[in-house]
């Protein structure tokens, strides 16, 4: 008797790419706005980014239904935290919360590939990168999603990171200025759009710094 295969999967991949770069006093988080399923585009104008706290922004690619559920869970937990502690969560705290939230669905994972960007308590940029079940790491820059294999090598080249295991521990944040980092992000997406069918339409960029949050948009190729 042949093994029966499931003919329905609870998951789908809506594609898309997310990038985040941490600077000395800013953080840039960007994602494209295309949502696809297989070879179809479902919409050209879907935001994958959510601002959970003044100092924490989450960008997620993957299965957007799971992403939306994850965003709601995190927002609710943050609200509870605020009631209990009378203050907002810091970015590293939110990072660990996200890791635990993902791991609690270890046996039925959120199909979400996340990048969390923000400012730590000292005002320095921080970026945390995750896998689908919650393993995370603080890094200077990161890319997740369908275009990540195209963008990450480029960022490796441009934002050469000091060896992470050096002593004394050196900052992974880039010395680039805010506008240079934004240009870099735009370049990344322009290139990724050329070669990745799931990336394109429009680019949404969130910039966090001491004076608050700012949004910028850039048109990308629609084919």
């Amino acid at each position, binding site marked *: 008797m042949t*093994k*029966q*295969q*499931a003919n329905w*999967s*609870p*998951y789908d991949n809506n594609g898309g790419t997310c990038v985040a770069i941490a600077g000395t006093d800013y953080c840039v988080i960007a994602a494209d706005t295309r949502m696809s399923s297989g070879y179809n585009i479902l919409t050209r104008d879907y935001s994958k980014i959510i601002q959970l706290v003044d100092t924490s922004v989450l960008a997620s690619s993957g299965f957007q239904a799971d992403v939306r559920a994850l965003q709601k869970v995190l927002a609710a937990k943050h609200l509870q935290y605020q009631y209990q502690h009378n203050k907002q969560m810091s970015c590293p705290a939110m990072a660990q919360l996200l*890791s*635990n939230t*993902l*791991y*609690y*669905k*270890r*046996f*039925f*994972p959120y*199909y979400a590939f996340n990048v969390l960007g923000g400012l730590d308590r000292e005002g320095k940029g921080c970026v945390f*990168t995750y*896998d*689908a*079940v*919650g*393993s*995370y*790491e603080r*890094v200077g820059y990161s890319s997740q999603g369908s275009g990540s*294999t195209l963008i990450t090598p480029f960022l490796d080249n441009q934002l050469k*990171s000091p060896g*992470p*295991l050096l002593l004394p521990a050196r900052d*992974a944040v880039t010395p680039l200025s805010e506008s240079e980092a934004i240009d870099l992000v735009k370049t990344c997406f322009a290139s990724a759009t050329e070669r990745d069918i799931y990336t394109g339409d429009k680019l949404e960029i969130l910039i966090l710094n001491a004076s608050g949050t700012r949004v910028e948009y850039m048109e990308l190729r629609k084919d």
Partner: protein
Amino acid sequence: MKIDFNQLETPAPLCGTKEHDEISKHPSFELPVARDFDGFQKDAVQMVKPAKGTTTLAFIFKEGVMVAADSRASMGGYISSQSVKKIIEINPYMLGTMAGGAADCQFWHRNLGVKCRLHELANKRRISVTGASKLLANILYSYRGMGLSVGTMIAGWDEKGPGLYYVDSEGGRLKGTRFSVGSGSPYAYGVLDSG
């Protein structure tokens, strides 16, 4: 004197739907309603694609325990990270190494750190490396067959001096003076055993 039976409670409550209220209880995990649970887990693991390609090693020497690990995480042929911290600090005097599933190792080591701290508070003294490794091994044994992938070494310094244990997700736990874990372990053993 009241004996503390907390650690003897069933580690893995499978069908718990309640959120994790108390830190000391084991987290309860939602399970998918699937006819083929094993196959579903295999697919989920494929999707998660635990970072493979690791070499970690540890050995006891005259002055303590030496622990070493590389920092590459690979998914098939793609290097997903060059800066993974595979040596995890469970507490200021105990280290764990990561091999297998990154999230599994990170989460359960953090959980072990919490349990060690609770032990300290309940018993007014630090937990031994033997005790800590047993705690972890029991947890992993209770999740045996569910697709966790953990190959770790617990290294530390306690009242008896340096301690080193190997613990894995099959439920194995070995005491020893020299271990290497991961896909690069045969090569590490070659060097360790010839020196």
